[in-house]
């Protein structure tokens, strides 16, 4: 009898392992579907992804998979959803064993560890659509494997949150519910700090960016007991996404706020509930068609976003580095260039901005990117990224 039990258990375990393996391979195999033309040597680049479902993440992936990978001799390999620093480290090591030459990171659990792991595995590393905090950048800017970072700077993140909060304060709302997304992710911390300042409130008695940001980092979230309202009250606050989030969202809706301000991911997670509840909301996300519909037919009234191909320049910088044309500033440091957000407050705004960038005809298309692929100076590259293309 015991032998039988052992056998059956072994079979069950084997089935679980096989199913798990299929699961793990499923998304990777979808990336491997497209074969590159054998004429040029294909460069393998690993992409670290923390979010596999969000509108912004999907639009970025769509651009890389359906435009970049079709126009350049590269193979982009994606991770599954990365939830912590250990997962990021393991993913980089796996990419190294798969023959990747570089890593583009859209995951931010521990970027310092990502750089160190890349260095240990001799992989070039770049941050897309985000930035290290200033202290970390100073520490790693001279690292030969650190290609650089292109995305909204922390100051830009703060300003985006500030403008969003001010928009509602100017509109005359008296109460808001607030979603802090994935604080202590630095960009969410800065955005949340901006929102608090934007609605005219203080946090722990402070009203300047540095002091608010420092306290939110320390609290690992927004502690409502420290918020001193000045016209606009925050009646509910929650962050993260887990089994309890629906309860927290329901509690926020029940508090009957005039508006719901999110520093990220609300259009992905909460659009339907907020539309049903009839609460106007804002978010920092991207200019996708789903968000366009939410702006047209739903209650999304303020959208701060990046466009899909805004991650094109960092790809160009990575490809240049892999091909031996690393772009460094005058002091020989990794590039660090800030990108601004776009803002839509009406469906018309949205349509206008969205029409400028699509997978078929992105803002950073091949013709544009080719101008910086090859030998290019830091100043020319910086001007290329910062040029207003909207």
């Amino acid at each position: 009898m015991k032998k039988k039990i052992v056998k059956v258990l072994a079979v069950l375990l084997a089935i679980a392992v096989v199913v798990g393996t299929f699961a793990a391979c499923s998304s990777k195999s979808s990336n491997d579907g497209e074969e590159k033309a054998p004429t040029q040597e294909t460069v393998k680049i690993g992409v670290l992804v923390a979010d596999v479902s969000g509108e912004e993440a999907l639009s970025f992936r769509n651009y890389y998979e359906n435009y970049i990978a079709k126009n350049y001799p590269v193979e982009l390999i994606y991770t599954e959803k990365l939830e912590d620093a250990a997962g990021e480290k393991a993913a980089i090591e796996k990419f190294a064993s798969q023959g990747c030459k570089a890593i583009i990171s859209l995951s931010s659990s521990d970027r310092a560890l990502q750089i160190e792991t890349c260095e240990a595995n001799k992989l070039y590393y770049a941050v897309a659509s985000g930035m290290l905090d200033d202290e970390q950048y100073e520490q790693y800017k001279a690292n030969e494997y650190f290609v650089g970072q292109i995305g909204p700077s922390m100051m830009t993140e703060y300003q985006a949150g500030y403008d969003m909060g001010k928009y509602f304060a100017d509109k005359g709302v008296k109460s808001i519910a607030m979603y802090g997304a994935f604080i202590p992710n630095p960009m969410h911390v800065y955005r949340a700090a901006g929102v608090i300042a934007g609605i005219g409130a203080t946090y722990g008695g402070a009203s300047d960016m540095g002091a608010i940001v420092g306290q939110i980092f320390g609290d690992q979230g927004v502690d409502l007991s420290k918020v001193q309202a000045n016209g606009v009250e925050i009646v509910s606050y929650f962050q993260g996404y887990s089994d309890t989030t629906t309860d927290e969202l329901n509690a926020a809706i029940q508090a009957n706020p005039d508006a719901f301000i999110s520093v990220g991911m609300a259009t992905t997670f909460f659009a339907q509930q907020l539309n049903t509840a009839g609460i106007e909301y804002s978010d920092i996300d991207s200019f996708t068609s789903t968000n366009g519909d939410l702006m047209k037919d739903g209650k999304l009234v303020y959208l701060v976003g990046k466009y899909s191909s805004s991650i094109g320049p960092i790809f160009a910088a990575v490809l240049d580095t892999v091909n031996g044309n690393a772009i460094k500033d005058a002091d020989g440091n990794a590039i660090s260039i800030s990108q601004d957000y776009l803002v839509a407050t009406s469906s018309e705004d949205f349509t206008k901005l969205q029409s400028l960038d699509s997978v078929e005809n992105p803002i950073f298309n091949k013709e544009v990117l080719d101008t910086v692929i090859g030998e290019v100076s830091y100043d020319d590259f910086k001007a290329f990224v910062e040029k207003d293309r909207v």
Partner: protein
Amino acid sequence: MSNQNTKTGKHIAKNIFGTLAIPVLVALVLEAICLSQGKNIITNLTSFNNFVIYTAITMITTMALSINLNSGRFDFSLGSMALLSSVISAKLTYAILGGSTGSAIVMLVICIVAGAIIGLISGILYVSLKLPPIITSLGVTLIFEGVIYTITGGKYVMAEVQNKSMASFGGTWIYACVLIVLVLAFTILVFDHTKFGYDYNALKNGQKVAVNTGVKEIANAVICYAICGALMGIVGFLNTVRNTNINGGQLNFTSIGIMFTAFLPMFIGGYISRFSNEKLGFFLAALCMSMLNSTFAVFSNKVNASMQSIINAVLLVVFLIYLNNEGLLQKIFKPVKKQPKKELE
């Protein structure tokens, strides 16, 4: 005759009191707590909608859990059944209707059918393998979670379940209320008024005796699993309506959490069933849990999610301590009757 009538009247009054004592007490205590902050358990129509949907989810999960647990079969796979049935039905419904009118009702029906089939598979595995149910259910949970991951690629299922039809289902308490009534009627009918139900109760109260008298325990167990699956299909649907997405990345037993919400109401319902129907007990227990959930919502800025989990766990432990020491408490609080001297002599 009048003596008997008085006795019957007392008996009915005792049952009514026993049935309603806990829900009424919970309502009074929680409302008092809310009023102390100038608020109510139910603040507006939105909170009432949430209240009824949460009641439906808790009641149906509790029923599904108790069906097998009362017969000594601990089933860890309930959460994965709910998820898998909802993922399958979301994908199928979207493929058929593309999110248009009627999506919610079609998804509900497919959820129930898929859940019943998944439950049936789980039941057949249990009776075929002849392993302890706890081990079988752990293996089945892993397999179901793996299948979910394979179907979804570990992503949230969103586009398939975010449409006007689903939004209107979740935007009112009426549909959830209808589901509560239908499930209550179905379970009371099946488990209390059919041959299957009599057999189930016989097996529950004494398996050997029941089997010796001709009850077919294997068929009964498999049907129980199928019914559990169908009920968890409804739970999967209601959770999808409530969350507006399905988490397709639940591996390594993370789906078990869905089941654990039902333990406290199951014990409360079991206590209430001493005075009335067990299924009605589960409904009233679910009402209590929903009132607690709504109270947490009122205090969400002060009582965070982890604190709520701790409060729930403490309540469960306290209630179990009470149940296990009921006799002792009665002894302490019951006045000792002096026995007549004669008897002592």
